[in-house]
């Protein structure tokens, strides 16, 4: 992976706008698309545990084939075992489900999964010890203007809301590895279509991720007993704030192996541009092919302790400099623009299913 900061340094040196960045199209021969991808976790959460089995796809495609009819079990070091069942989410996405109470999540106990595919190939994850629980104390939003170089070399100032967490660190574990999953879910009601008999309007709930799916994580050493503050990501101040949005933060206390995996994954999938960036390569996780160890397996099965915190933000939450205007009006229809205003499911990651926490 190229060292982005080194490059930006070179660009800055050229100083007079003589450097340039432009998107290019690659026509690369696809790699092996039959490799198994495992994506799942086992936590202390009171809700179900999900595990996804899929195959890679060609570069540029973001849909991934589900691997059906696998037999999956989770095992602990006390000899307990529980099986996953194959099911569908409300959005009709297939996955394997482990019921919340099927296996007790006990800090200090180790867990692994076994997967048997339809063709008989066996896979197994390396055992991981359930880490100590680290509670999440507070989440707040810090608004800031951030300049960036826009098209044609014009400087544009983005309005961003930075998501800051506060968490008291326990003394019982050192080091502590934390990773966060965070998103913003906002309310987006449709406008009625013009005409005498418009269909009923719908209310959508749209999920936005932070920083292009940047994976926030940190290693904390010798800081037990203190309160830790950290900005885990940011979100553009846009239409999401107009009608109200929930910022959901899941704090995961993870193992060292998981931390290293996600650190590398983060760098591969979203380089920070530091000298610590990993060069490109295939990222292998903690799953191995028992039937043929020479065949690599992608993905990771994570064992973690989680805590969830959510806050709701409105148009005036961030102050007058960060308020947003009305995104949709009925004239959009005649202008032929913003069709999402009349069909909210056109928005990425939108659903009409109200989240259980929405009030």
């Amino acid at each position, binding site marked *: 992976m190229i060292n982005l900061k080194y490059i930006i340094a070179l*660009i800055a040196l050229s100083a007079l706008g003589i450097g340039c960045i432009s998107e290019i199209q690659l026509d690369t021969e696809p790699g092996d698309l039959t490799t198994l*991808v495992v994506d799942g976790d086992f936590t202390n959460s009171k809700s179900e545990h999900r595990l996804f089995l899929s195959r890679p796809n060609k570069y540029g495609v*973001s849909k991934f084939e589900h691997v059906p009819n696998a037999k999956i079990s989770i095992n602990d070091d006390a000899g307990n075992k529980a099986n996953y069942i194959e099911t569908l989410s409300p959005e009709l996405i297939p996955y394997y489900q482990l019921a919340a109470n099927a296996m007790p999540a006990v800090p200090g106990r180790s867990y692994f999964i076994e997967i048997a595919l339809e063709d008989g190939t066996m896979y197994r994850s390396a055992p991981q010890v359930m880490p100590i629980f680290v509670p999440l104390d507070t989440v707040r939003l810090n608004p800031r203007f951030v300049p960036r170089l826009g098209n044609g070399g014009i400087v544009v100032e983005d309005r961003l809301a930075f998501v800051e967490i506060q968490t008291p660190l326990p003394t019982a574990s050192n080091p502590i590895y934390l990773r966060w999953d965070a998103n913003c879910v906002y309310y987006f009601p449709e406008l009625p279509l013009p005409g005498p008999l418009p269909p009923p309007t719908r209310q959508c709930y749209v999920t936005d991720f932070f920083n292009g799916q940047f994976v926030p994580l940190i290693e904390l050493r010798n800081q037990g007993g203190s309160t830790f503050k950290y900005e885990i990501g940011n979100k553009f101040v846009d239409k999401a704030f107009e009608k109200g949005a929930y910022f959901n933060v899941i704090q995961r206390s993870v193992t060292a192996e998981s931390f290293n995996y996600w650190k590398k994954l983060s760098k591969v999938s979203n380089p920070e541009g530091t000298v610590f960036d990993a060069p490109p390569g295939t990222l292998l996780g903690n799953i191995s092919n028992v039937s043929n160890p020479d065949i690599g397996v992608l993905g990771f099965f994570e064992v973690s302790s989680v805590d969830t915190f959510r806050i709701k933000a409105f148009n005036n939450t961030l102050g007058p400099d960060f308020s947003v205007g009305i995104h949709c009006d009925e004239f959009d229809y005649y202008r032929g623009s913003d069709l999402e205003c009349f069909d909210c499911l056109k928005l990425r990651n939108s659903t009409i299913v109200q989240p259980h926490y929405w009030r």
Partner: protein
Amino acid sequence: MHKTKILITTYNYLWSKFRVSFFLLIAFVPFALHAQSRMNTSATGSYKDKNIYEILTGLEATYNVRFCSDPELLPWYKLDYSFRNKTLHEVLKSLLAKHTLTYVPFNDSLVAVCRLQDLNGDYLRGLKDRFINGTIELPEFLKPVERTITIGEAPQSKTTDAKVRISGQINDDDTGESIAGANIMLNGSRVGQPTNALGQFRIDLPAGTSLLTIRYIGYRDTKINLSAWTDGEMEIKLSPLPLGLGEVLIEGNRASNKTQNVQTAVEALAVSTVKELPKLLGEADVVRSLSTLAGVSNVSDGATGFNVRGGNVDQNLTLQDDAPLFNTAHVLGLFSVYNPDVVQSVTLYKGHVPAKYGGRLSSVLDVKLRDGDFNKFRGNIGLSLAAARGRFEGPIIKKRVSIIAAVRRSYSDWMLQFAPLAEGKNSSAWFYDGLVKVTARLTEKSSLSVSAYQSKDFFRYGQKYGYGWGNQIFNATLRQPLGDRAVSVFQVNTGRYNANYFEPSSVNNFNLTNGVDYRNAAWRVVLIPNARNEINTGVQWNRNMARPEVLRPKQSISTILSQDVPKDKGEEFAAFVDDEFKLGTRWKLVLGARGVVYRHFGEKTVRIYKQGAPITNENIIDSINYRKGQTINTAGGVEPRVSISYKLDEKRSLKISYNRMRQYIHQISNLAAPTPVDVWQVSNTYIAPQTGDQYDIGYSSEWKDRKWELSSDLFYKTVQDVPIFKNLPDLLLNPNIETQLLAGEGRTYGFEISGKKNKGNRWTGWLNYTYVRTFLRTPPSVETVNKGDWFPSDFDQPHQINAYAKYAFNPSVTVGFNYTYRMGRPITVPNRVYSVGGVIVPDYSVRNNERIPSYRRLDFSLNADQNKSRISGAKFSFNISIYNVLGRNNPFSVYFEKLQDTYPKAYSLSVIGSAIPSIGMDVTF
């Protein structure tokens, strides 16, 4: 017809310039009318390597006319000039006009030649008077030095077939230093015999009188009327021309004569060429100039270092007065640390590498710095858009002790004010470098020089992050003769390369430092036992101590914890010998070898890994502590160095060479273009020295007294134990860096063709084409990358073209065009994607599976240089350059970035994406 033409031309010129009185016209028209017959005389002639005064003297005999001029005011440079069936008017017109000279006939047989700016009545009358009175004197520097030497006594009875053998030593009259490569020509022959590395020659002559002419660029010709009746010896001292020729002409370097020298693929880059090539922001640059040579490339604009025949940047041994430089980059690679004002010679060994060099696989860049002037004070001041330079030199004790001091300081900060981003405006970028060198002549042939060099770079991008790095070198060299046939050179160097990367203001603010300390000492002897042998031998000691990687928080609020990662130390003990000798008249050989014992030593804790298992942290089973200085492991071996040259005739030669090289220090970089803070790692228990074997077959030919040259090389190289990083390694701050690397192997093959026009009144230049392929792989083992398959290295750029053309309006005013084409270098791009935790992850399962777009660049330069036309006083030179005339977006690399939850998109990044005009000037005094 011609009379009228002369009058009109003269009149128009004078009138347009308003610089001559009406009197001039009236006074000289009658003489011009009389001159018709001489001017119409037709003749043919040819002059080679003559200055204008000498050509005019030659024309006097041809046309039976006398020329009257101030020789001191005529250009001193030498040129070739031929004419066929031309009238004197045509000859003078074509000869003089392009040198801003003109002529005015006084009468039928006397013609004045003068500079255009001197063309007025008073001057011409005075000139004529001085000519008639015989008071015009030829300046000393234009006269050859003439000496008469007699060896033995003339026999009473002369035998016509007797031969005598004359040995000679040629030295600089001012410094006493021997002059290597001076030409000794017999009885007017244009083909001479060069002096060897000690300035010695041996020549067989018929007994009796002979005329020897000794010629070397930058010195007055010396003519020896030799009466030799017996074998004997003589010493000849050449007088330097009263000009700073060292600054502009280094073409007498032996390495530049590919047909005559025995080594394959050695390139000498004249400093004058470095200064004439198109510049970036007005700064002449040695390393950028290297990329105009066959087989030399770099990643792109702004890349640190250079690549030779597809090798890594760290595989080049870059020397400055024999001291190694670990990072030659200023301003993240836009410029290099070599200050051209103090550079004396630039030699690049790509094929055969003499045995005195070692420790790198691809090439040796040997940059020698000048000594200060022993006789008078002089210097120069230069300004460009990027930096200001100053050089000062002169005698501390006349003819005994000299000093040269030079400094450069950039003022690039001001440019950042134009940066589009706020971070850019608040950024800082500067560099400086400085050199002081004192040379003392202890005796006539021995000298001691001591130099200190320091460079420093700093770059900060807003308050976000920054880099800093610098080189320090201290050097002492004692040169002493050992009898008449040998000279000894004892040298010690100590130096440091240090670098840091910092992030000043985030919650994770930190400062990371690393670098290399080194010490080395060498004792070399150049021994010339006879005219056919030249032996270079000696011993060397070289210690490299990688500095610890130190991570520190910059402020107390930082979440970063201090971390110190000690690094390895190693030293090489080497003995070497090269014997360059002749067999008959056609064969030349260099047989050499270098023996090295390498020692990796403590203090260090060495991890022991499970045998047969991959070297990973999980497989550490034990550790052994070594105390300070204790040997941990050793390596090394003999490195044969052989080169053979066969002269097909005087103008063509075939060569073949074989080299073995070993490299004991490696730059561990995760980028194709290294950053300043990339880790330098010496060989240790688990990281073996790299071993390279290179075979080279070369052909060189020249025509018309080296006016044209053609050379080509076919090469094949294998490399063992080249460090290849594993997938997604952690290279920084890793105490067990061997867990991130695998020992790979490499192979390189290709050919280079280079055509060059060295001389010409108008056009000179070169055209180079290189085809080179470089591949790497990890041999079958418990752990491989890329499934153990061969993959192209980061610097595999198969097709490379460099062309340079210079057009001289006159020797002082030239324009140059430089064109570079390189096929895009390989990069690793994702060939599939998958999803984990809602993150779309690009997967890079095949190394270097794509190429960035090709690199093409055309540059232009206009140079005006009074150093080549003025004899005394301050001399100005100006340069106007346009870098990347076509404004092409040559990519530095391709990177991937994701926006929102889409798949990663590929972006091409160009550091220089538009044409960059610049201006620079120098004043030499």
